[in-house]
């Protein structure tokens, strides 16, 4: 229902384009929790911006196609990147990082709700909307009193819950959450993640969550996309990513994570990610990869299917690479 095909989105900078999203193809499905994982600076937040259609200079959509199918009263309309801002809140909504103060500090929460949704809301006047908001908060087990509060009167965890409520009030088909629990305590984090997963379950829509914490992905996501240096290196069911990672980067990353109750030695990955200004011509992970071959520094490996629903971009998958190549040649002739 939402697909990205060969999308490139770069930031213009005086030193040249920063290739934060570099040839990403991804299918976003209804009724799933999709996790986007990767280290800081790998482009995962930019990918979320692109999916949200929030593409403002210096960020620029260089090439590729974005195609979203919006269901509206039984009708399906097809949207491209530039149409998305018009359907924020009702089709696609965004929960920002907890550390960001996106709420207006001098406005009561109820007025922020009103400001955000009244534009799209077809049913009724201010009082009716206020009542619906109150009902919705109750549904989410939030105290209705928060509506009368100013943001600074709420704890960090409660502010983030309000943002989740705000983002999901109009039942969007896609909810994007960019590190929604960073900077919050783990106890509060667990509560907010549970709130997000419950909303997703109730509405049956799509939740896309960006996190650098692999534990968060393990706990709540159904499918994961692993990003490295602006590219997707692996996409697959969460359970398979953790039990049978295909890409060397994912495999090494997961092996490096310490686990409580297990004292076995863990190794980090030596080296560092490449600069997004000047990424290597081949596989972005090749300089750090213990399996790197000649071809890895020359050509970029495409994402190919390894097993059901599990894609990886690595030249080690010789058979899958050959099959994908044959298919491509076949399609061309």
């Amino acid at each position, binding site marked *: 229902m939402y697909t990205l095909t060969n999308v490139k989105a770069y930031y213009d900078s005086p030193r040249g384009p920063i290739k934060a999203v570099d040839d990403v193809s991804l299918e976003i499905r209804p009724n799933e929790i999709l996790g986007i994982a990767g*280290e*800081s600076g790998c482009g995962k937040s930019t990918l979320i911006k692109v999916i949200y259609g929030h593409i403002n200079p210096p960020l620029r959509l260089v090439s590729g196609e974005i195609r979203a199918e919006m269901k509206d009263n039984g009708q399906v309309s097809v949207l491209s990147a530039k149409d998305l801002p018009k359907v924020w809140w009702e089709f696609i909504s965004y929960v920002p990082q907890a550390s960001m103060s996106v709420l207006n500090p001098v406005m009561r929460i109820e007025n922020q709700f009103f400001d955000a949704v009244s534009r799209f809301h077809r049913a009724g006047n201010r009082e009716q909307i206020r009542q619906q908001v109150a009902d919705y908060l109750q549904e989410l087990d939030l105290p209705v009193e928060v509506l009368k509060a100013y943001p600074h009167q709420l*704890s960090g*965890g*409660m502010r983030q819950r309000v943002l989740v409520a705000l983002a999901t009030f109009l039942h969007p088909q896609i909810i994007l959450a960019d590190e929604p629990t960073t*900077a919050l*305590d*783990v*106890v*509060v*984090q*667990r*509560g907010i*993640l*549970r709130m997000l997963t419950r909303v997703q379950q109730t509405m049956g829509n799509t939740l896309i969550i960006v996190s*650098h*914490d*692999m*534990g*968060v992905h*393990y*706990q709540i996501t159904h499918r994961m996309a692993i990003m490295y240096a602006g590219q997707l290196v692996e996409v697959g069911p969460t359970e398979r990513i*953790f039990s049978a990672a295909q890409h060397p*980067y994912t495999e*090494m*990353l*997961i092996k*490096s*994570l*310490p*686990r*409580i*109750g297990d*004292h076995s*030695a*863990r*190794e*980090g*990955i*030596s080296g*560092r*990610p490449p600069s997004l200004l000047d990424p290597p011509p081949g596989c972005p992970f090749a300089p750090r990869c213990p399996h790197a071959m000649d071809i890895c520094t020359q050509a970029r490996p495409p994402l190919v299917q390894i097993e059901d629903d599990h894609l990886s971009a690595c030249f080690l998958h010789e058979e899958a690479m050959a099959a994908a190549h044959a298919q491509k040649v076949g399609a061309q002739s």
Partner: protein
Amino acid sequence: MSSEKVMELKGLTRAFRIGGLLTGTRLLAVDDVSLTLKAGEPAILSIVGESGSGKTTMARIMLRLLEPSGGDVYIDGRHVFAGADRMDSHEFRRFVQPIFQNPFEAFSSRKPVDSYLYETALNLGAAANRKQAREVIASALNSVGLDYGLVEGKYPNQFSGGELQRISIARALIPNPKLIVADEPVSMIDASLRMNIVNLFLQLKNERQVSFVYITHDLSTAYYVSDYIAIMYRGNLVELGPSDAILTDPQHPYTELLMDSVPKIGEKWDDIAVLPDVETKEYAVTHCKFAARCPYVRDICRQQRPPLVEIGPERQALCFRPIDYAPQTEREVAAAGI
């Protein structure tokens, strides 16, 4: 002659005033904390807590960057803040060295990083001249897996966060300290590089006989690296003991809640658990600060401050539950001792 204790905190308290001069309140960031790090075998003690638990305030006091409001800090058996035999700054810095959270803030972007290494070596008497200093520096860099030639003359922006954190560890090693206090040293480091830094602590503990105080909010690296763990909550040390014992069999209800809340890999959350996260003015209360969230709370917990109870070899918890909620009389509250 050196003391039997690398570090000892006795009844350590630090209050801050928050808010206005007249309307403000006193916040006890660190509230009567006692703990000891023994000499002999070097050890890694993790101080684990969430934001606002007082762990960074404790780190700053241990590093002599902040004076306590009450209680005493001893390093190598000597007073740090008061007394006639007080350690002077020079002695202190040869014995205790810091590692900070953000390596990019620890080095000025306008000076080559090796200039800091030379300063440390020459100021703290690790070397008499630049030539000697160079050797000392090269050996310290070697210990953290870096080559002097690759560091010389370079500026901070030429390194990754992980490399720069290694350099700050190398700098800390130069005076051959007995104790390194590391405040969230890997929280700014990428996941794929984090373990390299954490492993370095283990390696340095063994090879250079350094003890570490590792301050973190991350239970999984704390478990991985430490011999002892201290759990902080709202300024109180609520549980202390060997890391295996604490994390496999937590005794304080807060430790239990914390353990349950960590998004672990390989063990899914159940969906039924009650998650108390009311945020109240817990710093100010004189009874148990966790009482408002505790599933095992009884009246006594809201009336008295719980004692630090010995619950096993080298283990303590600040809780009424292990003593069957017996009211506190003249009970002797044992000072924490590892």
